[in-house]
């Protein structure tokens, strides 16, 4: 029995050691929109090279879900939202610092390579299986805004597309996945989501279906932090809008803010 007690104490000591060990590096937790996945992984690497004293942790999901988590008090330090609306939601209850636009993107139609679907009108053809992100998801909101651009009231384009809608995905990457698997005939996602994927092609939206570009905004969630951590978060935000950060975003297909 004493042996068990010793073991228990050893385990506790080890656990205490773990928490102590992490003190040398400051952790910057970044909640980022799903569409930023590859770009922000690259930014993380570049940032950590420049700031070895910081450890960037990335958490990707639909911006609307990240916003809800932050409203529930999730420990994200930096929020990179695909839609200013979601940052506004968080800002209504938690103080934001260093808020700024860092990139833009555009909604396009995503189809499997070689698809006969060419325009928005084809999405409304009876029998097409269309996948969108949910209405609360930034990509879903932008897509529905674009569909509202229908010039003639008599032609209910959005109604036609909604009839073909088979799923409301919870983030834009899930939309792309359903198209890549061939389960859906088309989806609407960001141009950057298709970049370099040989299985997918994009169809640009043409007027009158163009909407203003998707705006990506960053901010530090400033409440309840030590000054040092807040500063670290601001440094990360600075880095994303610095020439290096902007070059990485551009290389991943994002437009300037």
């Amino acid at each position, binding site marked *: 029995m004493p042996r068990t007690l010793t073991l228990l104490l050893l385990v506790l000591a080890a656990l205490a050691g773990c928490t102590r060990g992490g003190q040398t590096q400051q952790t910057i937790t970044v909640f980022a929109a799903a569409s930023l996945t590859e770009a922000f992984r690259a930014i993380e690497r570049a940032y950590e090279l420049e700031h070895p004293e910081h450890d960037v942790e990335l958490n990707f999901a639909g911006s609307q*879900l990240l916003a809800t988590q932050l409203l529930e008090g999730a420990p994200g330090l930096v929020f990179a939202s695909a839609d200013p609306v979601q940052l506004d939601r968080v800002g209504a209850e938690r103080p934001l610092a260093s808020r700024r636009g860092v990139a833009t993107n555009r909604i396009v139609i995503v189809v499997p390579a070689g698809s006969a679907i060419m325009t928005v009108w084809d999405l409304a053809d009876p029998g097409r299986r269309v996948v969108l992100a949910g209405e609360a*998801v930034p990509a879903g909101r932008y897509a529905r805004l674009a569909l509202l651009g229908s010039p003639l009231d008599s032609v209910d384009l959005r109604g036609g597309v909604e009839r073909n809608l088979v799923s409301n995905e919870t983030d834009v990457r899930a939309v792309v996945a359903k198209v890549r698997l061939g*389960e*859906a005939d088309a989806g609407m996602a960001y141009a950057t989501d298709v970049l370099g994927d040989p299985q997918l092609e994009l169809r640009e939206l043409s007027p009158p279906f163009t909407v203003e570009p998707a705006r990506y905004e960053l901010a530090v969630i400033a409440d309840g932090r030590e000054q040092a951590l807040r500063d670290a978060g601001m440094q990360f935000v600075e880095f994303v809008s610095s020439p290096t950060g902007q070059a990485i975003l551009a290389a991943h297909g994002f437009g300037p803010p």
Partner: protein
Amino acid sequence: MTTHNSNPPARAQGWGHYLLIPLALLGLALFVIPLLGLIARAPIAELGVVLRSPAVGAALRLSAVVSVAAVGLSLVLGFPIAWVLARFEFPGRRLIRAVVALPMVLPPVVAGVALLTALGRRGLLGPLLESLGIELAFTTTAAILAATFVAAPFLIIACEAALENVDRELEDAAATLGATRLRILWTVTLPAIWPSLLAGLALCWARALGEFGATITFAGNFRGRTQTMPLAVYEALQTDHEGALLLSLIMLAISLAILFALRGKLVRR
């Protein structure tokens, strides 16, 4: 701790209970506090409004349909599997037993991906299904299949264990009296395994009702067609977390009721 069966009952020595009882309480807290959190935070006054909203009505109806259908399918396909596994000795039986139990430990999203690669348009059986004019993805049928895939093992395992414990002499006796196989199954075997079958059905139903990952992966998320309660909770969570709390509370009540009503009955037997 050693036990001496030959000795008269004696108080066990040592301080083990000082360790185990607090750990048990800590463990209980881990289970109970999240439930209390849900109850404390959910705006119960708005329950009526939420229940009357069309999205919730559709999700409740769909969850009922999908979970009952999944239990039915699990019974029709799963009971025979359990019966074969329990009654016949054949090579590969252990492997089949493991394969059948696999969905219990598989992450549900993986189950969904597996279903896609089997039954999706580009899946193994995709061309066959297409030539038959069957489209599964994004349909209620897909949601039912997803729920069955993850829930049936609970029924199969419960049934198999029970079937193996049935007194074979009773079945043999019935056979010598001239009863047919089906009649033996109906009048001797089934009554003997009834409690276990019921337990299996309860677990199977609860699991089907809670299914999320495989459904959203394989069947997508569309109100009234594939958006079951767990998917509705997840969607609500993204925008209206008060609503999500209430929906979670409803799910909690239903699941608890199932387990309480059915499992309580079985343990007594």
